[in-house]
């Protein structure tokens, strides 16, 4: 396919996991596909790792020099990089580059459980999805194969009713030394009448060579970068898509979705190609089907920016007024400790096991479901190894005494984190900051978030559960570092903002991620989730994208 094509079968906005999978599947089916990616393709992985090694703080964005503030597509790296309307801060970030935020994701790939799709019916809170677990199960299997998910089929088959019709393509990532110790310590533990079991976490990192990528070597830097590509990132499917014939246009920022005022179908994408010398080139791309896959902040931003006085007065696909609403994350906290026994952290993936017991239950009527991650990275943010070093130096230690005392501290550092589900809420939202534009003259996004009692109560429950695990580990109170009350961090799971549903009056897309109002427009990604569940969202994003690709293919075959 020629790169200067201005017409194709399918135009995909965003070369992250959702866009790349759709581009790959449709290009492999011989459709003419063009991907427009706002960010750069970037340098090779070794150079990114070198920049990571030099970064003073190893933030998610730290390896990606071309997403720093000097870039026209700079990506947020902390809550301070957003325009926040409050009252609570939104803390999760994303990456605008080929491969998208999968570059700095952790890589956990749990499935949603059946009740996650029926929250309103089951517990009287939130909303139901227009699909259920049965609808998505075959696509979960496909997604696990495409991404390369390592997991323990027997252990996870049937978790909260989440049956598995196919084994994982790879056996599980081995638990860490400390994980095995903790799992044994909690044997027989119950909390609020439920058995507390430590289960292995399914992960998109290779437990053997798979799909041309090596097995995980335990480099422990999954966030923000896997140095050897053992962890999946969406460059895998961008590459497969282009090999299959798709065209990738990088540094191509879509500035407007144009509509036909009569049919209300999308008629073109207007976009700007940019380069490092400041040159800008305005272009237009036409397609039969358009797919917006720009993640949960850029997608609603583009839809709102593209308002059209005739065909979409409040924004593209926004007749329901739901575009930008229901912004969610998995609000997290952690309890850290110094354990009496050595657990030898800082080796292997940052987490390989967790407690999934409270991902479902009748308690969801009153407080959030939550998942625990058993950490394998010391005390996380509570006390870094560098902070421990400073402390030992302040104590006046030197030489072998410093080496031994510091080592003794580091091998016993430990944390367990919890991740809680947020309910969808109309007043948690992305809107346009009309007075503040980016370097393309487009209004920036602004975010509103409210911390609810539904999460506060879950924070308390999760902390109490972790305390009971710490009791089993015989950790003295003086060596425990709890999360300050009502504080949280982001999980990097940006969800909601273009939710799916059956009712065009209360949702943005239908069960196939097709916009209710514009029948040649698909919107994919975590933005379509009506509720967030407690699963890291990428596997569900991938499953929904593959399902949408199938629908798009059938539409193209029918010529509609």
């Amino acid at each position: 396919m020629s790169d200067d094509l201005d017409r194709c079968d399918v135009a995909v906005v965003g070369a992250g996991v959702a866009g790349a999978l759709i581009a790959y599947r449709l290009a492999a089916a011989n459709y003419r596909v063009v991907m427009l990616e706002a960010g750069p393709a970037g340098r090779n992985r070794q150079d990114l790792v070198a920049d990571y090694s030099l970064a003073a703080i190893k933030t998610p964005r730290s390896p990606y020099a071309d997403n720093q503030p000097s870039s026209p597509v700079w990506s947020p790296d902390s809550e301070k990089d957003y325009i926040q309307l409050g009252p609570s801060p939104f803390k999760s970030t994303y990456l605008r580059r080929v491969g998208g935020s999968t570059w700095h994701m952790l890589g956990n790939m749990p499935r949603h459980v059946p009740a996650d799709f029926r929250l309103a019916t089951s517990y009287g809170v939130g909303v139901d999805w227009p699909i259920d677990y049965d609808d998505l199960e075959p696509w979960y299997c496909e997604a696990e194969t495409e991404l390369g998910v390592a997991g323990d089929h027997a252990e996870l088959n049937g978790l909260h009713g989440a049956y598995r019709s196919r084994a994982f393509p790879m056996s599980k990532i081995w638990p860490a030394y400390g994980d095995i110790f903790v799992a044994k310590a909690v044997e027989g533990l119950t909390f609020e009448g439920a058995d507390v079991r430590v289960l292995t976490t399914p992960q998109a990192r290779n437990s053997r060579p798979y799909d041309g990528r090596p097995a995980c070597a335990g480099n422990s830097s999954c966030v923000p970068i896997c140095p050897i590509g053992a962890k999946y990132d969406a460059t895998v499917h961008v590459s497969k898509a282009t090999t299959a014939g798709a065209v990738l246009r990088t540094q191509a920022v879509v500035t407007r979705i144009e509509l036909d005022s009569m049919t209300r179908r999308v008629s073109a994408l207007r976009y700007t190609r940019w380069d490092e010398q400041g040159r800008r080139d305005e272009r237009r791309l036409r397609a039969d089907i358009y797919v917006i896959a720009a993640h949960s902040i850029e997608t609603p931003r583009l839809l709102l920016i593209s308002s059209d006085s005739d065909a979409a007065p409040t924004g593209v696909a926004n007749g329901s007024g739901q575009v930008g609403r229901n912004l969610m994350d998995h609000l997290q906290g952690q309890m850290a400790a110094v354990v009496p026994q050595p657990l030898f952290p800082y080796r292997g993936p940052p987490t390989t096991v967790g407690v999934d017991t409270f991902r479902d239950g009748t308690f969801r009527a009153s407080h959030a479901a939550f998942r625990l991650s058993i950490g394998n990275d010391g005390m996380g943010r509570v006390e870094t190894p560098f902070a421990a070093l400073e402390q030992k130096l302040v104590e006046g230690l030197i030489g072998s005494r410093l080496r031994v005392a510091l080592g003794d501290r580091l091998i016993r550092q430990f944390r367990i984190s919890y991740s809680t589900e947020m309910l969808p809420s109309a007043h948690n939202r992305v809107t346009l900051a009309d007075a503040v534009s980016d370097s393309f003259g487009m209004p920036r996004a602004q975010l509103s978030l409210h911390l609810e009692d539904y999460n506060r109560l879950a924070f308390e429950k999760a902390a109490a559960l972790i305390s009971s695990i710490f009791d089993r580990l015989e950790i003295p109170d003086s060596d425990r570092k709890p999360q300050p009350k009502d504080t949280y961090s982001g999980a990097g799971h940006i969800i909601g903002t273009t939710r799916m549903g059956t009712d065009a009056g209360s949702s943005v897309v239908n069960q196939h991620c097709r916009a209710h109002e514009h029948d040649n427009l698909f919107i994919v990604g975590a933005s379509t989730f009506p509720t967030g569940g407690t699963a890291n969202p990428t596997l569900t994003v991938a499953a929904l994208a593959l399902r949408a690709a199938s629908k798009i293919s059938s539409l193209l075959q029918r010529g509609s």
Partner: protein
Amino acid sequence: MSKFVTGYSDIGGELEQLYATIMSSKPDWASELASLAIAVDEAKANADPEAALMATIKQQPEVGHAARRLAHVWYAGRLSAENGVDAAFVSEEAYFGGLIWRAARAHPPGLSGGYFGHWRYAPDV
């Protein structure tokens, strides 16, 4: 002096030269380093040289400054934070060669040098 202050006897090479330059990159740092050198020589005459140096550190702030600075750069691969701002790592090699990871019996994030599943077992050393 680096070996004495860090407690690791097998360090040296290019990092030692690099850190020597840094340790003398300001006049007062060079002066403090000279004081540390004297203190280390004197400490070695004691039955417990480390304890002797730690006692000197308490009594002579300039020796303490240099000892902490030298130990910190070897362990962390960078100098201490100043005014709450973390220092940049001296070089890629400095980050990956930080003794802090050896003390933890682990490896620097980003470079394990290990094989699949090594994290399942207690470290070898």
